């Protein structure tokens, strides 16, 4: 077959299949666990295996319907929720990059060693603070000193300024918490240092040419790898992040569906999990492709 003759395509296909297999098996495990959740709305004649089969059909085939509430299609709810969830995640990571990139690149200029030490020191002391604690403390400080409380519900009706104000605390808490900023900063700093020690870069510098585009190009892959691992991490904790801020994204919908007695919306839960797992799949697949492109010999 023409498509298999190319060694590179074969490897790409292998990576795709590997990640897709991970996606489907994770979904399967979630279905297995969901069927163990006690639910009185399900008549007791339905056995555990029938329940698992039911959830598998819902998740693997796109047989979505109206949600339990009947007002909206599952797809509408999930679309709306994913818009909110991904706004939060990507905005926070953008802010992290905006802070970490210049700070890490300062290594290149080899000045400001004091600033670097101070920055790294403060970060490593602040970084173990988890997102939950950051969120509580930030809400406390904003209420005590600003006497205002940004509520999610203002986000829906508000204009751009209100929305930015409401987004302030969640984005700050996510960007600062759980060592995300620290990891990015460390990675950027290490990679910059590594690149700066390369002989070809020294040659370019000796020529007097600008080095920053070379440095940035070398940084792309490491940043992307860290980005993908942080996205996976944030998606793992999405439920608590959205619960604290009452942010009606996918995680909040999952939590709400799981804790309402009697009206658990399984298609919604499975659909949200599917979207989240798909994001993880996408990013890890792209990361594998890029690593492969850089080091093809690692693929044996």
């Amino acid at each position, binding site marked *: 077959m023409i498509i298999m003759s190319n060694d590179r395509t074969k490897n790409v296909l292998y990576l795709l299949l590997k990640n897709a297999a991970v996606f489907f098996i994770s979904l399967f495990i979630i279905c297995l666990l969901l069927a163990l959740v006690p639910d009185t709305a399900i008549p007791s004649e339905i056995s555990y295996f029938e329940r698992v089969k039911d959830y598998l059909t819902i998740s693997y085939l796109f047989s979505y319907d109206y949600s339990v509430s009947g007002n909206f299609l599952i797809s509408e*709810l999930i679309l709306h929720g994913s818009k909110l969830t991904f706004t939060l995640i990507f905005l926070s990571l953008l802010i992290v990059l905006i802070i970490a990139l210049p700070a890490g690149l300062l290594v290149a200029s080899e000045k400001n060693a004091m600033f670097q030490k101070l920055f790294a020191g403060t970060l490593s002391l602040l970084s173990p603070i988890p997102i939950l604690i950051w969120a509580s403390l930030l809400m406390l400080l904003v209420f005590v000193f600003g006497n205002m409380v940004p509520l999610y519900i203002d986000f829906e009706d508000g204009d751009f300024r209100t929305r930015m104000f409401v987004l302030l605390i969640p984005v700050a808490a996510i960007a600062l918490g759980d060592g995300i900023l620290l990891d990015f900063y460390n990675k950027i700093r290490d990679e910059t240092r590594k690149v700066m020690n390369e002989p070809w870069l020294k040659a370019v510098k000796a020529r007097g040419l600008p080095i920053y585009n070379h440095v940035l190009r070398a940084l792309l892959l490491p940043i992307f790898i860290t980005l993908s691992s942080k996205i996976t991490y944030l998606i793992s904790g999405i439920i608590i992040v959205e619960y604290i801020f009452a942010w009606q994204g996918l995680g909040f919908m999952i939590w709400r569906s799981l804790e309402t007695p009697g009206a658990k919306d399984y298609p919604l839960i499975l659909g949200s999990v599917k979207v989240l797992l798909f994001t993880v799949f996408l990013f890890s697949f792209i990361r594998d492709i890029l690593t492969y492109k850089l080091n093809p010999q690692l693929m044996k």
Partner: protein
Amino acid sequence: MKYFIKIALSFSIVLVFGLAHAQQNTGLRYIESENVASLNPYENSSLRMVNIRFHELMFEGLFRYDHNQEEFVPVLAEDFSAIDGYTYDVKLKENVFWHDGERLTVDDVVFTFNYAKDESNLRSLSMFFNNTISEVNKINDRTVRFSFFNPNLGENLMSLTYWILPEHLLSEGPAARREFARRPVGTGPFEFSQITIQGTGRLVRNNRYHGKVPNISNVQMDVLPDIDTATLRMRDGQSDLLVNTPISRIEEFERTHRLEPFQSYNVHAIGINFENPLLQNRDLRRVLVHGFDRRRSLNQWFNGRGSVLAGPFTSSSPNYNPSLQVMEYDVDRAKELLRRAGFNTDRQGRALDHDGNPIRLNLLVKQQLVTGMSNVIQDFIEQMKAIGIDVNAQFEISERYERRLYFEKDFDLALMEWVINPVYDVSHLFISDNIYPGGHNVMSYRNSQIDELFEEYRNTDATRRLRRSQIMYEIQNILATDIPCIFLFNFDQYAVFSNRFSYTLIDPFAFFTFVNEWEILDYYE
């Protein structure tokens, strides 16, 4: 000084915003803590109060039960006549229009009741209808004939208070039903306008309403599950009504808002499992009651807004026995009863049963509690420990709670909450016929006297009021001394209104029944 200015400034900004909002707003914005489920009232997955309240704004029934006058009032019906005890003819009001312009006809009524009896719809309601109404027939263009199974007037009329749905929109099949669930149409004072994904629902005034056209021009329902954010919005003036205020948070609104009380029929109690031989000892049960200071818990966590109960009836229920005496908190008496029952205390102060083992009781609790009840539970555990009884609280999610309570009977004590509709009776909780897996007598309480009294009550005709009261009084006396469960509290219920509204009469169950008569103060418009 600067600090005070800052506070005043930010407060005034918020106030100006709030006032500006209010000036343009002749509407009602109210806050619920849960999303509305289906917009078709007969296709919910559960009969939650959120749905009932929202539907009450849009739909109406043939009759309505006035809890103050304790009588049935006709709404969509004009009159009814009883052919015999089992058959009633109901005459429909003329010139009532649906929100889409069609006229209300007898076909709608017939269709609604057949739809409600269909078991593929809301199961718990359909069971009720199938047990109460045998047939619904159209007599002529204005009259419907209902045939009932029992001659119980109260129950029969109660079945006629449920909402009427439009036949022309629902009889065409599943696609039409889907459309109806997205855009419901009723005959009530407000018309459906929109519902957003967050759960915000918007309704507008029905100008062709057959009764008094409401003063309020539109209604908006916001969903805020967190009571703190709801409180903040009420304080800022961005919302006018908080429907489900936890009783422990009422104080925050006392000075700035109107508190509209409505009769509450909630009864909180700690049920006792009579299958545990220890608890069959009545002295031990008395110890549990005497050793728990219910009044102090009520005062401390709920500001005294409620009453301590001695039986399953609240003071606003009919047939409430006013001479009932609450067993007061008395630690010495509790310890003496413990000793008298033969339970000695060891050196560490723990009470020992007849085998010499320390007494340990499980308290089964549902995980999501009424705000403030977790403090009551902690008080109970502490005070029991002071007497020497070790109580261990076990929290379960509501599914497992129900399974342990109703089916496995795996508990010693269980925190329960009942909402007792005054038209129904409480016998199903205490008669021994209901002791089976899934039955309501989860306490496995057997008392032949109680069984006989409830039987007599059911067989006594409704017109013999004196005798019925006497029976109920007797039942309450027996329950108070026999202690089938530790009756805790009945909380007052308040709806919190902003001061924009001057007249706000509410119905204790459906809430918005009289919304078309509510009045907004002029100078806010």
